[in-house]
């Protein structure tokens, strides 16, 4: 699931991950993502922006991690938030990986590979 308030960014990420044979769903903010997940669309991995209206990515991660039924979901932040403090916060809240925008397609592939979601 790609969670970003920018359609353009969702489009870029969608092209990268569909090229890796992922099926995708999209949400424009954290609350919309949670709504989809509660309706049964439970993804293997979420690519999560930080700064979004309604519900930001950090809050989304804490909400996902508070639900034991979603413990197997892999969470990867994809954001411009590059302060060390923010990265530590996200990882402490339950994010598995962190990618700083702008990124290259290879950076996304490398992170997904590190997470064991695509072949190394």
């Amino acid at each position, binding site marked *: 699931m790609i969670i970003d*308030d*920018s*359609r*353009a*960014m969702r*489009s*870029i990420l969608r*092209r990268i991950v569909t090229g890796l044979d992922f099926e995708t769903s999209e949400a424009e903010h954290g609350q919309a993502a949670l709504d989809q997940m509660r309706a049964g669309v439970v993804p293997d991995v979420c690519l999560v922006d930080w*700064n*979004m*209206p309604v519900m930001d990515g950090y809050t989304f991660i804490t909400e996902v991690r508070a639900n034991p039924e979603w413990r197997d979901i892999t969470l990867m932040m994809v*954001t*411009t*938030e*590059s*302060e060390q*403090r*923010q990265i530590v916060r996200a990882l402490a809240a339950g994010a598995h990986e962190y990618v700083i*925008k*702008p*990124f*290259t397609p290879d950076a996304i592939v490398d992170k997904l590979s590190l997470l064991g979601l695509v072949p190394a």
Partner: protein
Amino acid sequence: MTTAVHEGPGSEDVLAVAEDVWMALLGEDGMLVPRAVPTGTPFDTAAWSAATTISGGWQGVVTVELAEALARRLTVRMLALPADQTATDSDVADAVGELVNMVGGNVKSLMPGPSTLSLPAVAAGRAAFARDAALACRVDLSWLDAPVRVSVHVPLGGPR
């Protein structure tokens, strides 16, 4: 051409941020080239502009201004639109907003924190600034002969 007036990020740092973002989004299409523009010259007309505000350990506003044609080309590229499809104004606003989000987020990382980054505000037209804001840094560039300007404004009297 780069111009630095008040305390804020250095022009070279802002230029590096712009080049990184550009390379990631449009690098295959051409390079950003510095453009000589006299201080005080308004940005070219027929532009799109976007702004994001940094608040906290450092305060400032980062804006990106783009020529109309460039904004649309950026949008087509980011959305991977088919050749026979044109970007709507809504599409352009979305793409330009994401552009300033990336530039602003990386400028934020250059300055003292912790700080927060606002959601982008996008307009068709020139960016306007409050009277209590002062120019800290301005970088004028061109991409395939289309003008681009990245500016950083800080509260008058310097960062608070």
